[in-house]
């Protein structure tokens, strides 16, 4: 009796994993953006994304279509991100890094609390961006929702890449993160580049939230907390200073977790994240800077 390996299931589960990864990827890119410009991990990135998602919900509730709400929320989130940077990050620009980390932790509670107060904690739902009808490709069933999620996430990251690669502002932004002193000498207002980074990160976070919410039957203010964990883990796997790494890392993580959950029994749903984290740590022991990261040379 030949062992029939179910390839169909493998492909299906891989795509589902990629879709989860896609949700995390946008948030992971946001984390990388902040890390490259400000040098810290923004622990409040998920909550900011959640706040954006609630704004989107309100807009839809007022009668806008999903996509109209989507783009309007992106714009609002961008402004919000810039505002947050100017208000609470700029004052501690020269403080030790750990101080900034604690500020982001404080921001976590502030944003979460604000979201709980403005929108009471009943569960809500966001309509699906794409139809939930499955489609058949070569005998394997995929959900359009999943494919759409992967597509939107990749498109957002691609647009961001185009911005950084081909625009003057994008170039200045990259330069500011790489070498703020040299950038100042050519006239770049490095401080405002930081603000720009936070705005773009907030927008990417909003993408993540607005993709995460429809996938669930309902969501509440805790929506993005698990997403933040996975995004952080995926970003570190990919190399915390590499946007490409963030995308690849989270996609890989999504596939890994999903396949582990499907094929390995003793890993209950609660242990999936710790096991994944253990795998990541294993990878890091071999490649300390992550898959695509750079180990900064230490100048003595």
């Amino acid at each position, binding site marked *: 009796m030949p062992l029939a390996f179910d390839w169909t299931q493998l492909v299906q589960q891989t795509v589902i994993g990629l879709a989860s990864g896609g949700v995390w990827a946008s948030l992971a890119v946001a984390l990388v953006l902040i890390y490259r410009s400000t040098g810290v*991990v923004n622990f409040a990135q998920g909550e900011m994304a959640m706040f954006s998602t609630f704004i989107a919900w309100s807009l839809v509730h007022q009668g806008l279509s999903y996509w109209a709400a989507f783009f309007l929320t992106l714009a609002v989130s961008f402004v919000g991100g810039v505002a947050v940077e100017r208000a*609470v990050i700029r*004052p*501690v620009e020269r*403080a*030790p890094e*750990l*101080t900034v*980390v*604690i*500020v982001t*932790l*404080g*921001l*976590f*509670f*502030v*944003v*979460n*609390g*604000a*979201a*709980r*107060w*403005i929108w*009471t*904690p009943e569960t809500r739902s966001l309509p699906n961006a794409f139809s939930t009808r499955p489609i058949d490709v070569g005998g394997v069933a995929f959900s359009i929702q999943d494919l759409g999620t992967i597509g939107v996430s990749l498109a957002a990251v691609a647009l961001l890449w185009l911005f950084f690669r081909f625009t003057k502002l994008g170039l200045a932004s990259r330069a500011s993160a790489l070498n703020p002193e040299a950038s100042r000498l050519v006239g770049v207002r490095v401080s405002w580049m930081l603000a720009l980074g936070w705005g773009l990160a907030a927008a990417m976070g909003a993408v993540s939230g607005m993709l995460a919410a429809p996938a669930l039957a309902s969501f509440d*203010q805790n929506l993005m907390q698990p997403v933040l*964990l996975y995004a*952080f*883990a995926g970003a*570190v796997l990919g190399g*915390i200073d590499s946007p490409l790494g963030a995308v690849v890392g989270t996609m890989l993580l999504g596939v890994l977790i999903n396949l582990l959950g499907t094929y390995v029994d003793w890993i209950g749903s*609660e*242990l999936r*994240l*710790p096991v994944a*984290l*253990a795998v*990541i*740590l294993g990878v*890091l*022991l071999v490649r*300390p800077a992550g898959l695509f990261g750079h180990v900064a040379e*230490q100048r*003595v």
Partner: protein
Amino acid sequence: MRRRSLGIVAWLVVVGAVLAAYALAPRLVSDFHSRNLAEAGIFFIAIVGLNLLTGYTGQISLGHGALMAVGGYTTAALVVHEHWRDVWTIPLAGVAAGIVGFVIGLPALRLSGLYLALATFAFAVAMPSLLKKFSGLTGGSEGLRLLEQAPLQVTGLSGTVTVLGHTTTQNHFLYYLAWGIGLLGFGLAWLLVRGQAGRTLRAVRDSEVAAASVGIDLAWTKTLAFALSGVYAGVAGALLAIQNEIVNPLSFTFLLSILILVGAVVGGLGSLPGMVVGAFFVEYLPDLSTRVSNAQGVPDFVYGAAIIASMLLLPNGAGGLLRRLARPLTTRLYLRP
């Protein structure tokens, strides 16, 4: 000569004041508040431990709550399964957490900074699940309930505790125990930091490359630092278990790790006196936040805003402020002619 004796007098005054405050504080507050003060003492111990690690070696840990869990569960398990008296488990709880800290410290050699943060973060996140998994030892989701399962081993079961002839309420006893250990631990850390060990720790924090070039064994130093801070966390966890008379997976969530870190930074990394401020901040702020309003989300908002405000006002924590205030005093006292 005169300056030297002035300095000694100043120190004696400070130490005297601290001891007086320690002895008298419970008299000034209600019995119930002694419990809060005791909990502040518990946080103090954990924060001092984390400060030794992060403030002096520059290593970040997001998993000190989980190390507290190791201590707390060691205590609970010894009490419930082995019928040890609760207070006698404290040293062993510290050692157990120290060993775990040592083991975690080993990969810290290869990883550093962010990656260590991820490792401790993973440890903290996994802890509740791990605790539920090994339910034989840990009591699973239910946890271990010292009061129900081993009442005879609980100190102060009758409401009062008699030590060396003196009788106090259980809450007062917990207060004296927690802060007594806290002050001892503080003293130990202070001595450590002052001496050769402290210089070694600081060297690692300021520049690993430079430290290595003068022969400091980086691996050993970092691992020991982790282990030591683990001992402190374990002791704190044990005290928490003793105070609450119960442990379950929810007693030691990731939030606790964050709380300890916030306390250490608000207190001022690298400043031992600041840790007292940090401990009180972490103990009283959640409560004060709910006093502002109990409406949905407002306490969290206030709590977060207070954390942000304290960082904006005092980027180097309370310790930074204390250092700035003390500078005119110390320069006058210790300035060489």
